[in-house]
């Protein structure tokens, strides 16, 4: 595979590639921040506001149980959301750009 440097430059400086990189960085950072907020929200409520998680929602069951289990499921769903975005949106642009470069 030989790619001319000026072609590479052109692609690297194209709006399309810049958008792709920006989109990817912003999606991954947004999802990372969401995950950290949920996780540290949980940790901080354990540290400062135990009563919240100790509230009863049944005879004995506390709200902390579904919240704890829910965070595990939420973390997994978040990876699913990322996969969905990457497979449907990101990969499509990647394919287009790759074709542009490799055709030349």
């Amino acid at each position, binding site marked *: 595979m030989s790619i001319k440097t000026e072609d590479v430059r052109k692609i690297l400086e194209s709006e399309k*590639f810049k958008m792709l990189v920006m989109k990817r960085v912003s999606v991954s950072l947004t999802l990372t921040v969401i995950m950290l907020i949920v*996780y540290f929200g949980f940790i901080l409520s354990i540290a400062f506001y135990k009563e919240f998680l100790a509230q*009863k929602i049944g005879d004995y069951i506390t709200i902390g149980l579904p919240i704890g289990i829910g965070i595990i499921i939420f973390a997994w769903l978040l*990876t699913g959301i*990322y996969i969905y975005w990457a497979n449907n949106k990101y990969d499509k642009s990647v394919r287009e750009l790759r074709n542009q470069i490799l055709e030349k």
Partner: protein
Amino acid sequence: METFETTLGHANIASVIIFFLFVAITLLITYWAAKRTRTTSEFYAADRSISGVQNGLALAGDYMSAASFLGIAGMVALKGYDGLIYSIGFLVGWPLVMFLIAEPLRNLGKFTFADVVAFRLKQKPVRIASSIGSLMTIVFYLIAQMVGAGALIQILFGLPYEFAVIIVGFVMIAYVLFGGMLATTWVQIIKAILLIGGATFLVIFTLAQFGFNPINLFNQAAIKYSDAVLSPGGFVTNPWDAISLGLALILGTAGLPHILMRFFTVPDAKQARKSVFVATGLIGYFYILTFVIGFGAMTLVGQDIIAHFDKGGNMAALLLSEAVGGRFFLGFIAAVAFATILAVVAGLTLSGASTLSHDLYVNVFKAGKADEVNEVRVARIATLCIGVLAILLGLVFKGQNVAFTVGLAFAVAASANFPSLVLSILWKKFSTKGAVSSIITGASLAVILIILSPTIWVDILKNQQAIFPLKNPALFSMLTSFIVGIVVSYFTKEPEAQNKFEDEKLRTYLGIGSE
């Protein structure tokens, strides 16, 4: 104390048979893999032939150690809700691995994560520094696994400790030495299926006693002990402690060399992300199971009895498996626990060997000029060295309280490996000196601060007052590592590396030129 009959600690025919079956099958796979393990790409990365789903299972296998199976179930059994805090911390790192690391790592690297950190920087200094971070993480993790293996097998099978350590060492060396990454991957996959399958059955048998309704189980636990087992308790006394531990668990996951190495076994970035999705689902499901297992053990076996067998509660899952499934089922779960240790140790050894041979021998000592045959031979010698080192560590630390070494491994991974990896992927101005100083600062602070922390200074060295207040240093050591990396890079600008950063974008984001 209530009376409780158990055969734990006596030779269990079922478990011996199942364990030998596991070893026989995995050695056969190793024989099969050995014929497909000749080149470097085959030895380190199974020739990139592993599918996303297979790698997801193998990642789960690498990550679910006996400590997380037996340790977390035990913690839940003795402490109730607080045990869940650990599970969640161990899981939440995975989405971050996916969002920040998996794909660029796959696109930029070849065999080790140091490939990515050193990609556009000066090879020698960066490789040496990142090898230090990798090897420290691996050695601390190995200590915990080997000592745990010896102690566990002693309790389970009545075998002498030294004998157990040597068996684990030899079988594991055989996997890695002959079968390389391909054999190691299949050992992980089989172990993951056994572990998740075993835990699922254990939960089904347990819930059968509560009309298949987990709410009945939790209610019974609250009635037997107190409401408190279902709410957060004394785990978090100092919020900074909790935050620091949380950071170590989640960012450490994203810096474990044996986990990162697995991303080079799949063909492309798409399969890399798929494997994290599969792994996160499996590990999350497994942690939910261990939570139910912990409460099952608390209710059906009882906290006194669990604590009587092991103060940390490590025997809870095993005692429960005999209580609900009889002697044969105990044998099965015990064999699975043994297989778990074997698989994790094999993954660690392969990763340590690749650091020694690929990063240090080839890229530092030989300045990148070593032929295939030579490199594979050196990788095999390195495997023997790490394998023997693992056995020695197991023997030397016999009877020591080494539980802290897992926390230390995660702290080093979060403070030395993670910052340099993330900065090299995301930040254009990252320089060689920045990377080296960030890694060295993170690694040494993590070790020094944990020695001065209550974990070692008070609990092990028996001093009155800890010099560093937090039990886990990650909050401080990780942040300092980032700051040092950024500040030093600002003062040691490397225009060449900055230009390369633009060019490597083609590879990072489009996968063009990836290996």
